[in-house]
């Protein structure tokens, strides 16, 4: 039993932190190339390594499509023997479809006549349908799509650049403009097969486990950054003749937040490890548990930080709200925290 990072893992994490500390890397067009050069797309990275990167990207609230590429599109691309290289994403959600990716998988399994996947594959391989809440489709080159073929739901690949400017709703409506979700209209768009109908549910199950494990780690990074700012501010901002952090009313919520962040971190690392070491129900539980804890930690840390900063925490200029927006994004993606708890209860009580 050894819950310590290896030297290599620590180096990977520290290098990422250093790279991301350079603000330029957050928006520069070069960023994708640099991340690729840093090895962040390498197939040999294990889930713990990927989680450490996701955490650092959360700390930096990076706008990179790395998570969509690795977490969402990656499993299908790899299953098809085409490991991700260019920015990619996955389109699975449909209007009035199930609320979560797991729900979509279950629906696919239940009945081929299920309306959960409204996007259909024509005989010539073109796709027609409408996908909602597709993350990072603006940046994506490869778009993986769940679509109903003659033998059931399969995963197919679309050249996302061909869709421009079709993706609608990105940016403006988004709570977190740095991780836009968009509606994609597919009207006879050419596609190539990636995963056949008999394997699609399994690949999507893996996708959910991996994408959520990485989101938990990202949420830990978001939470840790907010807490770090709040602690720094509380130690230096003076009111009533002393640093505000000398007030327990300010200090104790931060201490509570620290407890949330650290337990969430333990759970996020454990979930990442479990996804590879114990794939199946144990990993599913671990991933849901980590997501509940980490999403709550991120929300609470951001809210505590805004409160600690007082008036200035509420300004646009203070960067806190960008992290808060990301925390909200995390809190509601692929199910709210309450949805995840409901699913977890199912694993605990109905097994």
């Amino acid at each position, binding site marked *: 039993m050894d819950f310590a990072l290896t030297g290599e893992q620590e180096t990977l994490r520290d290098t990422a932190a250093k790279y991301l500390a350079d603000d330029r890397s957050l928006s520069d067009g070069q960023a994708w190339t640099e991340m690729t050069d840093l090895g962040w797309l390498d197939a040999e990275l294990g889930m713990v390594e990927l989680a450490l990167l996701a955490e650092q990207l959360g700390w930096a609230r990076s706008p990179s499509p790395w998570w969509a590429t690795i977490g969402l599109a990656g499993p299908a691309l790899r299953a098809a023997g085409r490991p991700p290289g260019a920015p990619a994403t996955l389109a699975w*959600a449909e*209007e*009035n*479809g*199930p*609320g*979560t990716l797991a729900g979509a998988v279950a629906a696919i399994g239940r009945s081929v006549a299920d309306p959960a996947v409204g996007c259909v594959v024509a005989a010539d391989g073109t796709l027609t349908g409408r996908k*909602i*809440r597709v993350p990072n489709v603006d940046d994506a080159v490869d778009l993986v799509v769940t679509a109903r073929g003659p033998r059931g739901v399969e995963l197919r690949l679309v050249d996302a650049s061909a869709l421009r400017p079709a993706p609608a*709703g990105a940016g403006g*409506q988004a*709570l977190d403009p740095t991780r836009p979700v968009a*509606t994609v209209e597919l009207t006879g768009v050419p596609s190539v097969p990636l995963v056949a109908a008999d394997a699609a549910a399994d690949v999507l199950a893996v996708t959910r486990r991996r994408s959520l494990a990485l989101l938990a780690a990202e949420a830990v990074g978001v939470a840790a950054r907010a807490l770090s700012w709040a602690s720094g501010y509380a130690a230096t901002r*003076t*009111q*009533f*003749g002393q640093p505000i952090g000398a*007030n*327990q*009313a*300010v200090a104790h919520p931060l201490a509570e937040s620290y407890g949330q962040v650290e337990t969430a971190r333990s759970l996020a690392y454990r979930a990442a490890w479990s996804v590879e070491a114990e794939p199946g129900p144990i990993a599913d539980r671990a991933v849901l548990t980590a997501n509940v804890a980490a999403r709550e930690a991120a929300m609470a840390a951001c*809210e505590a930080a*805004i*409160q600690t900063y*007082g*008036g*200035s*925490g*509420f*300004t*646009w*200029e*203070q960067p*806190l*709200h960008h992290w*808060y927006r990301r925390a*909200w994004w995390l*809190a*509601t993606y*692929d*199910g*709210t925290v*309450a949805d995840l708890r*409901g699913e977890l209860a199912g694993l605990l009580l109905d097994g």
Partner: protein
Amino acid sequence: MDLRDSVEEAQFRAGLREWLAGAVPANTGPDVAPPLGRWDDTAAVRSFTAALHAAGYAGLTWPAEYGGRGLSPAYQAIYLEETARAEAAEHIGVIGLGMVGPTIIACGSTEQRARYLPRILTGEIIFCQGFSEPEAGSDLSAVRTVARREGDELVVTGRKVWSSYAHLADHCLLLARTDPQQRRHRGLSCLLVDLRSPGVTVRPIRQMTGAAEFAEIEFDEVRVPLDAVVGGIGDGWRVAMTTLAHERGTFGFTLTARLEVAFRRLVATARARGRDTDPLVRDQIAARYVELEGLRWTNRRGLAALARTGVPGPETSVIKLRWSQAHQRLTTLAVQLLGAGAEPDGWDRYWRHQMLRSRANTIEGGTSEVLRNLVAERVLGLPRSY
């Protein structure tokens, strides 16, 4: 104890409702997501203010000798409830009407009363409040803005923040240090400053929602005549506290009525998204309703104490604190209800904005931490903790 409106109150409420039905542009009602910023149009607010004044709804509780109607706070409470429910604009001079005017009545000179009070009522003079500074947020006694005496004038230099309505205002009730030798609560004065004076710069503060409801005001060697001082040089702390006490008077009625509107929209959103049958959502909605009702009836209880004793009961000291928590929980729940599976629609935009905006509720107008200090110290008799 009779919790119904008296006959006179019921008449006043009915008259006001009828008037509002005509004066307020058609509402979307609680079932449709309202457009954001519907009162952003200053001309519309000005004309609504003129109509309010003409209908006799400005200065309800002001003494008749200063142009008010001399009504009891219960009428003000009804006014605040009904205008919030109708989603009417506020009187454009709400700061002057609710805070600066009463301060001038209580502490100002005869000349100040004559000069400002009538024009506050009509909306001709719009006041903002210049108390907070970058380094003096919760701790007002740390203000650094200096008003240096030069002959018959004071020369003001400093920076004020978080001033609501400053982008519309032409006047400011300013808290400044007139005696730099004195510290903390001493050596401060309150001045009535014309913001059109040379040396004044008003800049909007952009909030995390993207909107700019507040502004910062910079004073660079602004010359103010000595007769602009309210209540005497060095009397600033007492005057400022008078102003803030008025802020907390019947304001709870406005807050609660707005929360009531938000609650109806929450229910509408739950229905629109098909979440009103989810037991977890129902539990939360009931919890939010209990919070709303707690505020509603505590407001009324406080009003009864105010009517009998002239001071609001101690229970009103928790209204702003609990309202801010209730509103944050409500908007958080609403955003969670938006959920997955649906396209962004008007409710998304509306609730995301409201949710972000609500984060300021526990900060603006007295942070929750400061309010808890006050309750602990002044109501529960605990020792000072800060």
